[in-house]
């Protein structure tokens, strides 16, 4: 299948077939991702990581992906101490960094930064998060995890749980998963519900959005439960936070109501929304997600470089 994508800016820019091509390529990357034989697929290619905001997993994951494929990486150790601190524009920074690299991964605090970077760059840009906006490789790894575990994406009963208002991973996943399913269950504390414009968008695409506070009630139907952290700072008082927090803790007693094949995902880091005892159950997929982050990023790097050659 041809992959004519130049940049990965937003999941919305990718056609279903592009998403599936990435997931298929990710499956093929698994063996290489586990180490052992050194791949030479991207030998001689250089990845630049340009992170204006701190990140541990995403940055390491991209750098590791490039190294596993035989490429090299360069990065700005601290953007704050670079030319940016002297007031350099993003466009100028991108034009400079592209001279040193074949592909750029960018994380930036401002929404739309990755798209702007893609407009000025001649090398592919991968968005690793732009403000409260998009983080497409996170969504791709979520989809890869679901597909690998459930064997398909179509027709699954998926619920998103937690802070659905501010969590960018949940917004992106809600749009992405409903390309393959007809409905989405949403469980959120009052005030942290999925933004109405997203609900309207999904309903406009004839998707059923089921908003409920009754997690136990819907649990027996679910194939996938995507849990996100509820942040303390979103609440007016610590008491409000404590009141809500307990309602949505996933523990072994709750999971007695679940299908044996239920997958629990979480973008991590978690605080206490999933009890550690759940880690040992076959439901826990959040550490698999971390590994899938690596294979998906290997797939994306490989496909973008391949598309550029074509």
């Amino acid at each position: 299948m041809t992959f004519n994508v130049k940049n990965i800016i937003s999941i919305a820019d990718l056609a279903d077939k592009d998403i599936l091509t990435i997931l298929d390529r990710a499956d093929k990357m698994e063996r290489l991702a586990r180490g052992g034989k050194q791949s030479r697929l991207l030998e001689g290619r250089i990845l630049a990581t340009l992170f204006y905001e701190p990140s541990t997993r995403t940055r390491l994951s991209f750098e590791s992906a490039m190294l596993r494929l035989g490429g090299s990486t360069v990065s700005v150790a601290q953007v704050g101490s670079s030319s940016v601190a002297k007031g350099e524009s993003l466009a100028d920074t991108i034009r400079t960094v592209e001279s040193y690299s074949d592909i750029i991964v960018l994380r930036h605090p401002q929404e739309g930064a990755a798209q702007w970077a893609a407009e000025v760059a001649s090398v592919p840009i991968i968005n690793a998060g732009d403000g409260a906006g998009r983080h497409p490789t996170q969504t791709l790894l979520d989809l890869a995890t679901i597909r690998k575990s459930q064997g398909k994406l179509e027709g699954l009963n998926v619920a998103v749980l937690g802070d659905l208002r501010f969590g960018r991973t949940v917004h992106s996943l809600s749009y992405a998963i409903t390309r393959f399913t007809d409905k989405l269950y949403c469980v959120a504390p009052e005030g942290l519900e999925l933004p109405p414009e997203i609900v309207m968008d999904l309903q406009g695409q004839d998707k059923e959005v089921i908003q409920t506070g009754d997690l136990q009630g819907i649990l027996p139907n679910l194939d996938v439960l995507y849990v996100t952290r509820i942040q303390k700072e979103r609440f007016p008082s610590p008491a409000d936070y404590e009141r809500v927090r307990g309602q949505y803790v996933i523990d072994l007693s709750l999971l007695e109501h679940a299908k044996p094949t239920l997958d629990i995902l979480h973008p991590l880091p978690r605080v206490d929304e999933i009890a550690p005892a759940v880690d040992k159950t076959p439901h826990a997929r959040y550490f698999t997600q971390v590994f899938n982050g690596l294979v998906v990023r290997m797939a994306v790097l490989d496909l973008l470089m391949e598309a550029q050659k074509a």
Partner: protein
Amino acid sequence: MTPKASEGSRELSVQKIKDGTVIDHISAGYALAVLQILGITGREGDILLVAMNMHSKRLDKKDLIKIEGRELTTEEINRIALVAPKATINIIRSFKVHHKQRIKIPDEIEGIVNCANPSCITNNERGITSSFTVTQRNPVTLRCTYCKQITSHNQIIDQLLGKS
């Protein structure tokens, strides 16, 4: 130069201008906003006729502006389009309509207004022009090409009127 009410009729007849622009079919209540966008204060000394909340077959109610001595530029017409998407522009020369122009809102808009999202890259980076797709035409609502957030009709008007 006040509009004359013809006797026995509820119609208002509004005086003709010699050279200038007539902006008709402005959404009711927006004439003063259009004047502010054009920077017209009424102190310029030229004839300026403003009629508001007039009966209209097409819009039910409408506003109308006649400006003597000024032909609007395309850029000015585009700015008006965001506030009064159904307006028609008549360029008047020697008391006659020289040409008529119905405002047409393009599918995409560049510049004119800023994205309402303060953390959008377009509000923080030098050398980048705001860019939108029009998601709704009446009233006009814009979606930023970069951050994808919506700039509402009220936010557009506030910006054009210099309130934000």
